């Protein structure tokens, strides 16, 4: 297995959270929940696991009488995500490589 492949991050719910967070700065907990299509408690569990691993930061804010929670990808989380995505791309590229190498030979025939 590729050493950059992150088993901890590859859990679908965690990878979904990190994928949504990556293009943004802070993301509302409600947006994360609705986009992934999960429950508050299930999302909270995965966000806590990611926060414990240092991959995300969590901030609670009082806004117009309601309490909102925001999640942000940490620099460590971003690096781990980049490494993991690169490992996945290498797996896909390795699978396609023999086909691409054979293509010119097939054309010559």
């Amino acid at each position: 297995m590729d050493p950059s492949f992150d088993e901890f991050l590859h859990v679908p719910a965690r990878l979904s959270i990190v994928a949504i967070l990556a293009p943004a700065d802070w993301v509302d907990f409600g947006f994360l929940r609705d986009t992934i299509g999960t429950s508050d408690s299930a999302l909270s569990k995965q966000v806590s696991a990611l926060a414990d691993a240092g991959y995300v930061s969590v901030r609670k804010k009082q806004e117009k009488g309601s309490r909102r929670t925001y999640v942000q990808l940490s620099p460590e989380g971003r690096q781990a995500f980049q490494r993991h995505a690169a490992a996945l791309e290498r797996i896909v590229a390795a699978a396609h490589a023999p086909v691409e190498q054979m293509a010119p030979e097939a054309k010559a025939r």
Partner: protein
Amino acid sequence: MAFQDAQSTLDDIRRLQDRTHDELVRHAFALPYMLLMALGIFITYASTDLQSPWDDVVLLLGTGLYVGVIIVHTRAKLCRASVRPRSISTPLEMVFYLGWAFSPLLAFLASESAAEALDLPARGTLAAAVTAVTFVAAMPLTRRIAKAVMRQKNSRL
């Protein structure tokens, strides 16, 4: 891991990132703010048809509305949006936002030249109206370009 699983995971990552891009673009180019900006553009450029001192007064009003909307909208983006944007970081992003900021001026100059060539009355007001309408009408295209720029920025995340 099978390459089909890796490919499927990468597809999921792109799909989810696109949801974030959609939300960022939806909020960045929200119609109420864009309509107010278009009104600011119209007032600013229509002031060129007025006599002194009204031209300066209306110019200040229009510019004030335009800048005020940008300030309020930026504050909303940074403080109240469900997805808050990362700071501008790529040259392409910079070029896009600068181009977008100056496009009304170019549209106005082109419209005014056309109005002059056709010898139309109230050229400034006419060109200002064309500029404001073009600004709003071009919004779907602007959103598509903004999303493409975001995708390019985040392609190596």
